[in-house]
């Protein structure tokens, strides 16, 4: 750790969300492999997956995917569009865009959470 600044925070969040999405991939494969156990086995795991707690994690996953993807665009702009001098402003834009989309997902998920 050197100092907190937008570039460092952007990189750190990119790593954390990247690891989270990779972890999710493992969980996803674990869930899908229950198909081999027939309908009852798959229903059992889906019952667990559809619990409110898991849905909160799904929302966090959406946030991680959104940030990782949108920050990826920021990285491409830095690499190919010669905008490295404006990376701090672009990072604020990444956070704002991620935040808006994430909140939209939360609003969309609230009825499902409440119905459980």
């Amino acid at each position, binding site marked *: 750790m050197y100092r907190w600044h937008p*570039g*460092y925070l952007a990189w750190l969040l990119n790593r954390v969300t990247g690891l989270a999405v990779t972890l999710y991939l493992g969980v996803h494969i674990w869930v899908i492999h229950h198909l081999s156990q027939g309908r009852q086995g798959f229903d059992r795991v889906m019952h667990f997956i559809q619990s409110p707690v898991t849905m909160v994690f799904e929302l966090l996953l959406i946030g991680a995917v959104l940030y990782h993807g949108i920050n990826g665009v920021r*990285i491409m702009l830095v690499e190919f569009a*010669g905008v490295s001098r404006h990376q701090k402003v672009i990072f604020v834009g990444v956070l704002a865009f991620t935040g808006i989309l994430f909140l939209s997902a939360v609003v969309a998920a609230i009825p499902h959470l409440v119905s459980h």
Partner: protein
Amino acid sequence: MERQFKIYRFNPEAAPAASFQTYTVDIQHAWTVLDALNAIKWDQDGSLSFRRSCRHGICGSCAMKINGKNGLACEVQVESLKGVITVEPLPGFKVIRDLVTDMDGFFSHLEAVKPWLIAGTPPTDKERVQSPEDRKLIDGLYECILCGACTSACPSYWVNDDFLGPAALLKAARYVMDTRDDGLTDRLDVLDSRNGIWRCHTIFNCVEACPKSLNPTEAIVKLRQKLAALRI
């Protein structure tokens, strides 16, 4: 006005572990951190070790971490700092003693990128003329004073000190972007290696650390674009 300086002390011959020692210094108006360090060394504790030379922010000798930020001790005004002033050696480099770090690796990486003009034509008895437009291409690249502040702040360098680091790559860009230079292919094996330009993760610590407000990340990106264009 009296100010307190909490200074990193390490003498491997005396004690295996580093510690901090606090000094109180009577600061005069417009003193830099280097002035304060000199006052400590000359009047209080002659054993304090640090590098300094030009005192004008151009030799790069007195780069150190001051209140958590890399900078040149001869440029940082004491009056611009708040509270107890913590002075540490540059992070990421092996400490030899107190504020003196081992810069051998840093300079060997610099040498590896061949930081000199490699012209494709034989020298003549005249200078190699450059247009003002071409000269402008190396603005922001030639000003590096090789203080090491950027490389020492780079996380990619912390985990792998074989990585060339931002200072060496900025210097490489200075010559690669020079229209009089034809040495890109001579530098390719180093720049395009596993410890070359691709190891930068655009964290921008180097930009935050540079006391000359240079942008090594931008230089590295330019090198990447240049090398990518070569392959297409």
